[in-house]
C-alpha cells in the first residue's frame, strides 16, 4: 500500500515536471489562488523575495518572465505548493524587471489534474522603498500584556531584529515610536507602567523624560517629529476603553479629553496655545508638514464619553507653527471635514514631498485601529481633491499608516488577514496619486502569519538599521536614569 502511494506521489510530481515543460493540456479557469496575494501588485525594486503559496495545489511550477530574464521555480507542500526564491535569483529578476513588469505563469497539479492558470503580472517600480520598517509587536489585547517590543525588519531580506524589548525593562509596556525624517539616529518612544517615561534617542545618546506636568492632562502621547529635529508634537489624552457586547469592532478606545502640545528638545519645555487646548474640544494626533511650518491635528467636539462614544466625529485641522519663535498661528484652518460626511478622520500623515495628506476615514471616534469600517483616504493638498484609496483598502481595519521617504510607498496596518491580528501592507502611490494594490510584508516561512500571534503596530519606515547599542542604551536609561522633568509654557 505504501509502495503504491509512493508511486502515485512520484507520478504526480513527474506530471508536474512535464507541465513545467509546457506539456500540460488543461487550463484552469482564472488566476491562481495564492497567499499572500501578490497578483497584479506594484512592488519596489529592493523588496525581499515575494515567497508565496499556490493554494489548493500540491505541486506547482511557476515561471517568472521579464524582459531578458526568465526564472522557473518548482514548489510543493501539504497545504499548497510553496514557491520560495533564492535571494540572488530574486535580485536578478528584480533588476531585470525594474521599471517594467514580471509575468507570472503558474502550472499546477490541482483537483487531480495538471493545468495552467491564467497568468498574472507584478509591476516593479523604479522607486525603491526605505530599507527598514520599524514596528511594535504586541498582542492585540485589551489591558494586559506580556512580551512586547519594538522591532525592525530589513525590507530587502527577511532579517528582523529588536530595537528594544520589554524583556530588558522588567516587562513594562512600550509604545508610540517615531523617527525624525525616518532616521535611525533620532527616535522617540514611550514606556508605560514600570519605568514609565518618554525616551528620546539622538545620535546614540538617550534622554529619559518625565512628561507629565501639572498643566497637562496626561503624560505625552502620539509623537511626531518636527523635520528640524528640535521639536516633537504630541497629544495629551485622557483615554478610556470599553468592550462591545456584540459588535465586530470588539474594543472601543475613546478620549474623554485631549490636547495637542509641542515639546522643545533643547529647552525641555512643553509648548501649546489655547487653540490647541480648547476646553470644548478634543485635539489629538498632531503631525508637522515636511517643511515644519504647519501643524496638522485632529479635533472633535468634546462629548459625554463613554455614553456618546459613537457620536464623536473628528476632523482634520491645521495651524501654522514658527520654529524660530516657537509660536503658533492665531487661526485654525479646516483641512478635511469628515464630520460633514457623518464620519471621522484620524492619523493625518503628510507625504515627505508635501503633496498629499493620508488619513484614516472611519465611522466615528479617533481610535480607528479597532474599527472595521476604517479605510485610508488621501487628500491632494494642491487641488484639495480627497478620495478613498480603494485599491489599498479592504473590508477590515485599514488604519495606521506612514510614508516612505520618496513619497512613493505607504505602509498600512490592516486586520484583513484574519480579522484580529494587524499585518503591514505596502502600496505604491504613483506620481499622479494613483494607488497600487496593497501587498503583505513578505516572509520566508509561508506559515508565519498563521501561527504568529502578535500584531504589527505602528509600522514606520526607517532609512537604516537602529544599532544594537541603542537597544542597550534605551533599556539602561529607562531603568537607571531618574529622568528630566519637563515644564509647560503657554504661548
Amino acid at each position: 500500500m505504501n509502495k503504491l502511494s509512493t508511486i502515485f506521489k512520484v507520478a504526480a510530481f513527474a506530471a508536474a515536471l512535464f507541465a513545467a515543460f509546457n506539456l500540460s493540456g488543461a487550463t484552469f479557469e482564472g488566476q491562481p489562488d495564492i497567499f499572500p496575494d501578490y497578483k497584479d501588485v506594484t512592488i519596489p525594486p529592493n523588496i525581499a523575495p515575494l515567497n508565496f503559496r499556490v493554494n489548493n495545489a500540491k505541486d506547482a511550477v511557476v515561471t517568472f518572465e521579464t524582459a531578458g530574464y526568465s526564472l522557473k521555480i518548482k514548489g510543493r507542500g501539504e497545504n499548497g505548493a510553496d514557491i520560495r526564491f533564492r535571494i540572488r535569483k530574486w535580485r536578478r529578476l528584480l533588476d531585470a524587471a525594474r521599471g517594467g513588469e514580471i509575468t507570472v505563469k503558474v502550472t499546477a497539479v490541482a483537483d487531480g489534474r495538471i493545468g495552467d492558470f491564467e497568468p498574472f503580472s507584478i509591476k516593479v517600480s523604479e522607486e525603491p522603498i526605505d530599507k527598514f520598517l520599524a514596528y511594535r509587536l504586541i498582542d492585540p489585547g485589551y489591558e494586559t500584556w506580556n512580551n512586547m517590543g519594538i522591532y525592525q525588519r530589513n525590507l530587502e531580506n527577511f532579517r528582523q531584529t529588536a530595537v528594544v524589548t520589554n524583556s530588558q525593562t522588567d516587562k513594562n509596556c512600550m509604545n508610540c515610536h517615531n523617527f525624525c525624517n525616518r532616521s535611525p539616529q533620532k527616535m522617540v518612544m514611550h514606556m508605560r507602567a514600570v519605568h514609565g517615561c518618554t525616551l528620546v534617542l539622538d545620535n546614540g545618546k538617550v534622554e529619559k523624560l518625565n512628561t507629565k506636568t501639572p498643566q497637562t492632562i496626561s503624560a505625552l502621547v502620539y509623537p511626531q517629529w518636527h523635520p528640524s529635529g528640535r521639536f516633537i508634537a504630541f497629544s495629551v489624552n485622557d483615554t478610556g476603553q470599553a468592550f462591545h457586547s456584540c459588535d465586530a469592532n470588539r474594543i472601543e478606545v475613546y478620549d474623554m479629553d485631549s490636547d495637542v502640545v509641542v515639546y522643545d528638545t533643547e529647552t525641555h519645555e512643553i509648548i501649546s496655545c489655547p487653540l490647541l487646548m480648547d476646553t470644548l474640544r478634543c485635539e489629538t494626533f498632531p503631525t508637522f508638514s515636511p517643511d515644519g511650518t504647519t501643524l496638522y491635528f485632529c479635533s472633535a467636539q468634546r462629548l459625554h464619553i463613554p455614553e456618546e462614544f459613537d457620536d464623536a466625529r473628528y476632523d482634520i485641522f491645521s495651524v501654522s507653527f514658527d520654529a524660530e519663535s516657537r509660536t503658533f498661528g492665531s487661526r485654525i484652518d479646516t483641512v478635511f471635514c469628515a464630520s460633514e460626511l457623518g464620519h471621522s478622520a484620524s492619523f493625518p500623515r503628510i507625504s515627505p514631498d508635501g503633496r498629499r495628506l493620508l488619513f484614516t476615514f472611519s465611522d466615528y471616534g479617533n481610535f480607528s485601529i479597532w474599527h472595521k469600517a476604517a479605510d485610508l483616504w488621501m487628500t491632494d493638498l494642491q487641488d484639495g481633491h480627497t478620495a478613498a484609496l480603494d485599491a489599498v483598502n479592504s473590508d477590515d481595519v485599514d488604519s495606521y499608516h506612514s510614508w516612505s521617504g520618496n513619497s512613493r510607498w505607504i505602509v498600512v496596518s490592516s486586520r484583513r488577514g484574519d480579522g484580529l491580528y494587524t499585518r503591514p501592507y505596502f502600496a505604491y502611490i504613483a506620481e499622479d496619486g494613483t494607488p497600487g494594490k496593497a501587498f503583505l510584508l513578505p516572509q520566508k516561512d509561508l506559515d508565519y502569519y498563521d501561527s504568529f500571534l502578535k500584531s504589527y503596530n505602528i509600522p514606520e519606515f526607517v532609512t537604516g538599521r537602529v544599532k544594537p547599542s541603542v537597544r542597550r542604551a534605551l533599556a539602561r536609561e529607562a531603568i537607571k536614569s531618574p529622568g528630566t522633568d519637563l515644564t509647560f509654557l503657554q504661548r
Partner: protein
Amino acid sequence: MKCSRTRLIVVVTAIVAAVAAFLMLALAVPFKLYSLEQNQLFLWDRHYILSTICSVGGISRLLSDFLLGFFAVKYAGAAISAVLLSLLVLFSGKAVGRCGAPDGCIPPLALVPAIAVLAVLLDPALHWDEVISLVAAFAAFAGYVSIENYKTRCAAGTLLFPLLWLATGAEGLLFTICVLLYEFLKGNFSWPTAIQPVVTAAVLFAGVRLSWVPDPRWDLGPLSHYEWHGELSLGQLMPWISLPMSMVLAALTTLLRRKGVKIAFATVLYGAVLLYGVFTAVAICRTDQSFEELDWHLKARDWDGVIASYEKYSRSPDIKVINDVFLNIALAEKGELCEKMFNYEQHGLSSLYFNYGRNVRAASLMNELYYSAGAVALSARMAFEANVNAYGHLNPRMTQRLVQTNIILGSYEVAEKYIKLLEKSIFYRKWATSQRQFLGDDERVAGDSEYGAKRLCTDGANYLGETEGFDNDLMEILRNNPSHTISADYLMAMYLLERDMDGLALALDEFYGTEALATLPKAVQEAVIITSEVKPGYMEQFEIDRRIFSRYLKLRREAGDLYSNDQQILYKLTANYMDTFWLYAMFADNDE
C-alpha cells in the same frame, strides 16, 4: 569494585528519591501539577519550534513545553518530576563521588541539589525550563568529571560551555562555576583551567553585546527562569549553589583523618539533609492548592466536584473569597444559585463578581463566569487577557475558549486561527478539529445546544460591556435571550449579595413571570419578604412559598427576643437561619 559500589549507592539513592518525590507530589499537590500544563502549549509548528530553539535557552524551553503538556494526565506530572529529580541525584552523585566523598556520605550530598529543586518546583513564578536546564547542566558536569585526562577534560569543558549556554541559558554559567570549583578542589591550577572562564566571559560578553541576553541583570543568574524578578531569595539560589556546596563538602571529607570526626561529620550531614528534606516536604504538603483543585473541576465541568472541593477548603481558617466564585458558578450551572447560595458563607459581591485587577488567574476565572452568564464578548476578552499572560506560548484552555467565543460571535476567521494552532498540539488536536464544523455555518452554530444558546444572548443591540455595571449587561442578555435563565440567576445573586433591594425590585419588575424568571428561587423569595416589611403588600405580586413565609414569621418572633441581648438567642438564630438571605442581610459584612 569500589567504583561499582559507589555507582550502586548513587542509583539506589536516585531510585529512593524518585519514589519519595513521586509519592509526595502525586498525593500532596496533584492539582498544582495539573495546573502547570496550562502555562504553555507545545506545538508541532515550524515557526514556534525554530523561534524557540533559536533563542538562548531555547532547547530547555522547548523540552519543558513538551513535557508539561503531559502534566494534564493523572500522575504524569509527578512521574516526570520524579524522574528529573532522580537524574539530578544521579549526576550530583557522580560529581561528589569524583570530588572524593566516601560512599557513606554520597547519598546526602547527592540529594541536596534535588531537594533544592523540589523546594522551588511549585513556585508559581518559576518557568519549568529551569529544571530541564539544571538537569542538562548537571549531566554535562557529570560527563566532564568522568574524563580522566586533565587537558582533554578542559578542552571538553571549554567546548561544552557555549553549547550548554545556547541550549539551557544561564545554567551554562553554573556549569563553568562547577568546572572551576572542581579543578580548584583537585588542585589543577595550570593554564588549561584558565581557558574555560575566558571562553565563558567572551561568550557571555558577545551574548550581551548582540542582545541575545535581553537583560543581563537577570538572565545570567538563578533568576533567569523566573517570571517575576524580585530580590533573590535563598530558596531561588539553592538550586544553583547546592551542587558546588556538595562538592566542597565532599572535598572536605577527604581532609578528615580521625574516624570519630568522620562519623560526627557524617552524622551532622545526614541530620542536616534530613532536616532540609523534611522541611521541604512539609512546605510542599502545606502548599495551598485550593484554586488549582477548584479550577481543575471547573475545567472538567464537574460541578459537584467544585462544590465538594469548596466544602473541603471552607473548613480552613483562611477565607478565600475567590473560592466562593467557583462555588457560585457551580451552583449557577446546576440551576441552584439563588436556591442554595446562602447554604454557604458568602462574602459580599466579590463572592461572585470582582474586578480581575489584571491578574491572570482571576482573568481565567472571570472568563468562566462571563461565559456561564452569556456575556460572550467579555468572556472572550478575559480569555484573551489570560492567554496573553501565559508564561509560555499559549494557555490551551484559554485558546479553546477563544475558539468557542469567536465561533459564537461569528468571528470565524479568528476562531479558525486558534483552531489551526490547537490542531498542531498533542492533546487538543482532536477537539480543535471537531470545532471546524461550526466555521462559517451559522445554522449549525444556532442548532448547537451550547453555542446556539450563547449566540442568542448576543443577538441584540450592541452596548459597551460593564460601563453601566455588569447587572445591566445581564439584563441586556436576558432581553436578548430570556431562555438563558442562568443569567437571571446571576443577576438576582448579584443584587442579593449587594443587598441591593431596589435593584432587585427593578429586575423583578421586568423579568418576573417571563421565561427568564418564571418562579422565584428561595433566596429571592426571602428578599421579597423582607422588602415587604418596608413596602407593605409588595410580596403579594409574587408567588411565595408558604413554608418560607412561615419560617420568616418564626424568625421575626425569635429575632424580637434579641433585644434581650441574650447571646444564646443569637447563636440559636444563626444556627437556625444561616442558610437564608435574612441572616446574610442582617449580619454579613459586605466589605469583605
